[in-house]
Every structure is written in structure tokens, then in C-alpha cells.
């Protein structure tokens, strides 16, 4: 059950302050990095909403992000819509598609759910790759950024764009935590813990799963529409299942089911990627090793590890029963229940 603990508040504040400071002081490359991190963070928040609180390990979130990117690109470049309308349109279309995917896949469990989402993601990839209307292998270029000149902001300026991304990330963070603390999120968490009992209580399980998956898809589409504006170009590679896999890696790296954890995971992931890529071509080797180490250590990622450490320290000093300890136990139970 999602809670805003003091640690989470402080971490959030620290991340926000550091990000703002970075945007104010950084040069071009640093600003690009901030935008990249913010976009990835939005995507992994979307994934954590369903994976961390509903046990819905999706391998189609990359495709949903790609749908958002292509939706935005198609609506601006091909349909000639104004960018803000295209943004809203892309989010709405992707949300509807995600709702449908959630409604269909929500009936299956565990590995079948993973496979089913993988299938839908790859289906989207094939459609984009093979239909000439989407530009095929070449993708589409000339994607415009939203025009905010009315309020005196030029998003073609990297600093403004980085700010814009951060602002949306903040909004997404607020929205995601709000939904998770509302009835929908609470009920979804209940379903993850015990689906049969939730049904016996009168909960329409597939509907809850579909609704949350739809909301998650809308957030993924925000990430996609931002990504399209960031590089002003879309290509089918965005929808590939490995993108979904990487997003899952980031969620796990940061701490599943904590929302702020995956944001930290996104920061760590992008920074590491740039650091390691500067020295070697074999960046995936490092990601792979880190991922295996994190999963096999059974810690809940960076943030989960810190939470656990702190709660343990407090337990020793104060001697009280700590709920964060319970949460990691619950994560363990969840992993076993999935089997």
C-alpha cells in the first residue's frame, strides 16, 4: 500500500532541488541529460504503477511510450494538428489502447501476463515497422516541439525544454502517487496481495486492472510524446520490447513499488550509461551484470535497500516494529506468490 514516508518526501525534495539546480547551471550536454532522465523517469513511474502495485509486469510499456511518440508525430506532422492538441490526442489514444490491453491481459497471471503484454507490444512494433504510413524503418522526422511563445518560453531552447520535462515529471509524480493512494490504487494493491479475496469482496478485478493499466499507458504516452519532441524524430526502435525490458531494469534498479525509487533508478541508469559508454562499447555487459546482482541480492533496488537499512537501524535503536520491514517481507511474499 503506497505511503509517503518521511524518507520518501525528503528524497523527493532532494531530487527536485538537485534537478532544478542542474537545469539552472548545466551546459547543453547536461541539459540534454536532464531531459533524457526526466523522460525515462516518467516512463518508469508508469511501469511501477502497474508492476509495483498490481503485480502486472508489463513488457509492452516501451511500445506504449512508442505509441505516444508516434501518436504525437502523426498528429502533428501528418494530420497538421497543433502540438498541444496532438499531445492530448496521443495521450488519449495510447491510454485507450493500454486500457484494452489491460482488459485482455488482466485475465492472465504471472508469466502468461508477461508473455501477453510482450505479444501486444511486438504487435504494435510490427504495425509501425511495416505500415508505410508510419514511415517504416526510417521513422519520421521534423516533429515539432510545443510552442509556448505565448507565455514567453521557447521550448527549442534546451534549458527551457529540460525545465518543461521536469515540470511534467513533477506532475506525473503527483498524479501517480495520488491515484495509488486513492481507491483505485488501494484496491489494485489488494488484488496483488490476494486476488481471490478481492473478488469475493465484490471487486471487479479486470476492471481495476484495466483502469490502472490505461492510466499507466497515458503516462507512458506522456513520456513518448516528450521523447518525440526531444529528438524531434521517431523511429520504430522506440517500440521494441528491449525498451520495455530496460524500463523494467530501471524500476528494479531503483526499487519496485516505491515510485521515487524508479526515478532514482532512472537517474542512475542514464548517468551510468553515459559514463560507461564514454569508455567502452560494451555498456550492456555492465547493465546485465548489475541487474543480475541486484535481483539475486534480493534487495529491492537502490531505494528499497536504503529504506530497509534505515528501518533496520531504527528497529535496533527504538525497538519498535517497523512497517518498511513489513513491506520488504511483503515484496518477498509477492515474489513467492507469483510462482
Amino acid at each position, binding site marked *: 500500500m503506497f505511503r509517503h514516508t518521511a524518507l520518501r518526501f525528503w528524497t523527493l525534495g532532494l531530487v527536485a532541488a538537485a534537478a532544478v539546480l542542474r537545469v539552472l547551471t548545466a551546459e547543453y550536454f547536461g541539459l540534454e541529460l536532464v531531459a533524457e532522465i526526466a523522460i525515462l523517469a516518467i516512463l518508469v513511474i508508469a511501469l511501477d504503477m502497474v508492476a509495483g502495485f498490481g503485480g502486472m509486469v508489463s513488457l509492452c510499456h516501451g511500445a506504449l511510450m512508442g505509441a505516444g511518440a508516434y501518436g504525437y508525430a502523426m498528429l502533428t506532422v501528418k494530420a497538421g494538428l497543433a502540438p498541444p492538441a496532438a499531445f492530448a490526442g496521443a495521450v488519449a489514444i495510447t491510454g485507450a489502447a493500454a486500457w484494452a490491453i489491460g482488459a485482455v491481459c488482466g485475465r492472465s497471471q504471472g508469466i502468461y501476463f508477461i508473455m501477453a503484454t510482450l505479444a501486444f507490444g511486438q504487435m504494435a512494433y510490427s504495425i509501425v515497422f511495416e505500415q508505410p504510413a508510419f514511415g517504416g524503418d526510417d521513422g519520421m522526422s521534423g516533429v515539432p516541439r510545443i510552442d509556448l511563445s505565448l507565455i514567453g518560453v521557447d521550448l527549442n531552447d534546451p534549458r527551457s525544454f529540460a525545465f518543461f520535462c521536469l515540470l511534467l515529471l513533477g506532475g506525473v509524480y503527483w498524479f501517480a502517487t495520488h491515484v495509488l493512494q486513492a481507491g483505485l490504487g488501494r484496491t489494485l494493491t489488494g488484488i496483488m*496481495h490476494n486476488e481471490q479475496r478481492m473478488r469475493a*469482496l465484490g471487486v471487479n478485478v479486470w476492471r481495476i486492472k484495466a483502469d490502472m493499466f490505461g492510466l499507466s499507458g497515458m503516462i507512458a504516452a506522456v513520456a513518448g510524446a516528450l521523447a518525440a519532441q526531444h529528438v524531434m524524430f521517431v523511429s520504430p526502435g522506440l517500440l521494441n520490447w528491449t525498451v520495455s525490458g530496460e524500463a523494467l531494469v530501471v524500476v528494479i534498479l531503483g526499487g519496485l513499488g516505491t515510485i521515487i525509487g524508479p526515478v532514482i533508478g532512472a537517474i542512475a541508469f542514464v548517468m551510468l550509461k553515459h559514463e560507461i559508454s564514454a569508455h567502452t562499447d560494451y555498456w550492456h555487459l555492465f547493465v546485465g551484470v548489475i541487474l543480475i546482482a541486484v535481483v539475486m541480492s534480493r534487495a529491492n533496488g537502490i531505494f528499497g535497500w536504503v529504506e530497509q537499512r534505515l528501518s533496520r537501524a531504527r528497529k535496533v535503536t527504538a525497538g519498535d516494529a517497523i*512497517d518498511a520491514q513489513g513491506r520488504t517481507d*511483503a515484496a518477498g511474499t509477492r515474489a513467492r506468490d507469483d510462482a
Partner: protein
Amino acid sequence: MLETRGLSKRFGAVHVTRDVSLRLQRGERRVILGPNGAGKTTLFNQLVGETRPDAGQILLAGEDVTGLTVQARARRGLSRSYQRNTLFDGLTVEENLGLAAAVAHGHWHSIRHDSLTRHDVRDTVREVAEQLRLMPHLHARVGDVSYGVRRQLEVAVALATRPLVLLMDEPTSGVGPEMSRGFHDLLNDLPRDLTLLIIEHDMDLAFAVADSITVLNHGEVVFDGSPEDARGSRLLKDIYLGHWADA
């Protein structure tokens, strides 16, 4: 309030329920007795919709619910507890009750309000927790409380949906005789207009609580009547109650 007509279900060659017809009045408290394998739990599963009957009808408050899903029946006021604890182990006692109460008050799919902090949900949680003596454990994680408390919570969660009919599958299964007597008091404290259908092995509890008794054997209703008649019944003694009636 709850009625079944000719409910039948077979698994392969075995009739687990055969032509079961029951009729519960509003506020009636009925205990179902029967040896292991008599089809009691399967009857519950059919009543709430977890198992489909091969034939027969189920009526809840006069409405035919035979074709409805588990969740649709639950929202119409049919709630159950399980013989084996079926709780949300990682969550606190309060959260367990809150999830159920949120359904009762229609906040379970809201994306605007926190279902657990709504005043109507909190009131229900408090009320049910008091009824089932769970107040001292409200903030404990379910995994950390004793087995007996979890048995109470199992019933409390079912009750927090504010049902018309509550089905309890061996609420005292696995608890000691002392706790069992405590349960007797708990059940007597429940609202009188709530219809109860209880599967129970503990004879003392059964006869202390029941307005009426149904006995199942090999999936068939072999006795249906008042506790007084049940005590005097020769048939019951033969099938099941031998040692109790002799005592």
C-alpha cells in the same frame, strides 16, 4: 433472504451436492453440519459463485443470482469468510478492513479520494473492528498477529462489506476451545438483521448460535430443522453426532 432450489454439482462420478434446497429468512442464523466431504464448502462455493452448479437456482433477496459472477453477488450483499485464512498478509489489519469497507461504500475504484481515509470507510472499519475485538491490533501487520486474531479478521473482512447474508466457513477452525467460546460471544453480538449461514464443527458453538440446523451428508440434505429437533434426531446421531448426543 437466501434460497437455493435443487442445487446439484458433481465432480466426475461424485455428487458433491445433490438437489440441495435451503431457505433462510432475514436475520436467521443457520448452522450447517456434516462429516468431512459432505459437500459443505462446495455448497458455499456455489452460493458465492466460485463454483458453477450443474443444476439448480440460487436466489438472494428474491433475485436469481445463479448466473452472476462472484463479484456481482458480493456487491448484492453476499459475503463469505474462508476456512483457511484468505487475507492480505502484507497489509495492516486496518488496511484489510478498509479494502473491504471501500467496496461497501463504493470508493473502491475512485481515482479522486483515498478510500481508506474516507469517513464512512473509517466508521465501518472501526465498527467492525469493535464488533470482532480487533481494536488493539488495528495497526499491526496481518503477518505479525496471532492465528486467533487472524481468524477473527477473516470474519471481520467479510463483515466489512456490509453484507445482507454472511457465509462463514468454519470460523473457529484451528483455534482452541477457549477462543471458540469467545467466538460464540462475538457471533451473538452481530446485528440481528444479518442473515448468517455457518459451517461449524464445534457442536457447542453450533447449538448455542443456531436458530436452525441443516445437516448434509454425501451432498444431500438429510436434516433440516430446529436445534431441539436436531438433538433428538436418530438419523443425525447415526451419521454424525453420535459422540455429542451421547455426552
